[in-house]
């Protein structure tokens, strides 16, 4: 690596990666097994939203539904003597089924929503999320209110007590793979076309690109990534129920992506880190106690007001002030349709 390639972003990335790799040595077991593992899996789910937002101009609330579908598929396939289908199959078959169902439903969602933009797209994906939540809440053959408990990871990961770090490192490896995969995809002709569609769908359509198909495929790809997060979630939590994918959870994942910065993939994990830590520690402060949800909301509101581009926007601005470079992307909210896509 030449001196010119040593950028603050890369230094920061390397530092974070080093800390993440050494986390079991630096942090308590609770931090590694509960908080940081949760950060990584929520980061994966939020990254799928950030990808759609930053590179396809689609802010989706359905990512939570997709990870739920993957999680419920795995739970139904692998557990016995619990609620749901009780199939008791091999955990790896459950993984395959989870990815298939999650990705498949994401493609269906994407095909249905791909012709909408802006707030209408957001509302349609919200509807998908609500449908998934109600489906699993009311169809007791696959879940019901109580959901599926006793979901164990494959023997290679082992029990939570005996192997606290294994799932963390798997989540870390998958986070890295997901991040690099997103980076790669955005540089492929498909990714570039997607960005063209984000900026001016009419022009891309005139050039012969199938806008709806590109959007559907992007949604399916993001769904695949979200499904990975869903599988990690049920391995980590050992349980999934409709409240795992309710409106609160949808808003949480959106908040994570917004706090981190909806235009940079790294923001997903940064947002997840801030969200998880704040969420965990606020309620232990005695004078806040049961009111912690309100305080969490106020903190998030403050962050978004101070920096519409999230924490990554603050980072960019700090670098800009230091003269290294100008902020990228301008932090434009993807919720606001451009004149071009507003006409679509």
């Amino acid at each position: 690596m030449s001196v010119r390639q040593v950028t603050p972003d890369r230094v920061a990335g390397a530092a974070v990666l080093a800390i993440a790799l050494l986390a079991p040595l630096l942090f308590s077991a609770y931090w590694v097994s509960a908080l940081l593992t949760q950060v990584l899996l929520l980061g994966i789910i939020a990254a799928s939203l950030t990808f759609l937002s930053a590179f396809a101009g689609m802010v989706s609330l359905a990512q939570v539904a997709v990870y739920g579908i993957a999680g419920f598929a795995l739970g139904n396939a692998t557990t016995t003597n619990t609620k749901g289908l009780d199939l008791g199959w091999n955990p790896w078959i459950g993984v395959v089924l989870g990815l298939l169902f999650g990705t498949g439903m994401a493609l269906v969602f994407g095909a249905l929503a791909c012709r909408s933009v802006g707030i209408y797209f957001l509302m349609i994906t919200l509807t998908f999320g609500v449908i998934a939540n109600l489906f699993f809440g009311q169809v007791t053959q696959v879940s019901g209110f109580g959901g599926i408990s006793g979901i164990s990871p494959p023997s290679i990961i082992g029990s939570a007590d005996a192997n606290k770090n294994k799932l963390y490192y798997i989540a870390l490896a998958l986070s890295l793979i997901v991040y690099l995969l997103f980076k790669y995809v955005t540089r492929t002709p498909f990714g570039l076309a997607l960005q063209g569609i984000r900026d001016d769908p009419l022009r891309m359509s005139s050039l012969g690109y199938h806008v709806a198909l590109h959007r559907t495929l992007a949604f399916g790809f993001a769904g695949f990534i979200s499904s990975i997060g869903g599988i990690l979630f049920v391995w980590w939590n050992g349980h999934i129920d409709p409240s795992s994918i309710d409106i609160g959870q949808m808003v949480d994942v959106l908040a994570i992506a917004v706090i981190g910065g909806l235009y940079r993939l790294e923001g997903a994990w940064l947002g997840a880190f801030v969200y998880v830590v704040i969420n965990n520690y606020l309620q232990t402060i005695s004078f806040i106690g049961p009111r912690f949800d309100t305080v969490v909301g106020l903190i998030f509101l403050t962050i978004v007001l101070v920096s519409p581009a999230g924490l990554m926007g603050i980072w960019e601005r700090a670098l800009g002030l230091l003269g290294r470079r100008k902020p990228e992307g301008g932090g434009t909210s993807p919720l606001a349709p451009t004149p071009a896509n507003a006409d679509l």
Partner: protein
Amino acid sequence: MRILLRSRRLGLPLVGLAIAVAALTGVANASSSAATPIRIGVMSDCKGAFGSFDAQDQAGVYAALSEYTGAKPKDPNDPRKGITGGAINGHPIKIVAVGCGSDNADLAIKETRRIVEQNKADIMIGPLSGDESVAIANYAKQHPTKTFVDGAAGAQDTTLKVRAPNFFRFNGDGAQWNAGLGDLAHNKLGWKTAAVIADNYSFGWTSAAGFIAEFCAVGGNVTQRVFPPLNTTDYSTYAQQLKTDVDGTFVAVGGSGLIPFLKAYEQAHGKIDSKKFIGNLFWGTPGEFESLSTDVSGAYVGGAGTAGDLNTAAAKHYANNVIGKWFKQIPPGGAAAPQAASTFTFGYYINTWGLIKGLQAVKGDIAGGQKPLQKALAKVVINGPYGVVKLDANRQAILTTFYQQLYTKDGKLAVKTVGSVPGVTQTFGGTFSTSTPAPGPTAPTCTKRKLPWVGKETVPKVVS
């Protein structure tokens, strides 16, 4: 400012800084565990369908700890303020955290994980509701070196299906609590057919299962089962579905849903005929039944192994000299003693008392991966306020259950215990086993069978 910024030009970036700060916090937490005290966590519901019983839950825990370990409530008018002191054989009791759950299992798992893994609880007391307990029992299986006792949750699966060796329940399940009601409906009230409406989750199913199993066992026929989701706010569609050409309706809609359901039923079918209704424990739970209309006066209700009006020294002592001694008020329900017989106050109390007895048996020593404590807990027998409680092979209570009748006293609704069934097991007289389908929307099926207590229920002496 400019100099400051420059000095940070190549310093730790925002992300690294955040994680470093977090690392320090994490390391600090890691070094804060202590071995000598008995570290106890409590899992309560402070929101959701049963959030209004949060103070009752904590009152039950702290009253038991105050009565048997020398602890003392910080505020007799608010159990949620916690306790000071308390020890078993020199091992101080330390309440490390109280989890704020709702009725959903996902949050219960997160809170339990936080309390066990972050706050280093050795022992957990709770949770309150059915699906939470199923999830926590599964969590317990993954953490065999910790010990879990139930709070007031009554799902059958928790102990009959999950069977975690380190999860103990000194309260009955929802089916056990309804022993005697099916016989009452068929043989006393003359119901031949019944409709059932219950919350669509583990406890609702279990509660309904107790009534269905016994009503069908004695020859009745359940012709309709309706299961609205927990936390439904508008019950009109479910109330309208309920058949009126049946002899009676069993209602196991609980918590914040009961009153909206009854209102919706009256809107759909007119004034309630109390002789055609039997409710589960929520109809007689202190803190809830007072809000019901006197229209339901005369209806029979299931209990929770509780009978607040029992005319025995043990029951009076518990209400006045235990709950009423340590607490003056349990908000928002008012005076503490009348709330002693609440499912939630009593559930958390009896489970905490069972735990204390186990801890006393091992002299407060929880070493050895808590295996000696768990062995001792399995043998605990409690001469409780409402009868003897002991555990079966799945660490589930065998207990005396009671059923009550609502009546009007001085223009207000009151509860009178009218029947009791001793020695009710979770198998419900052989109806349920580890291999029978778990209670659900279609289980158990309506089958005639013999139950050991049918026709043998007794009428206990009560305070008039």
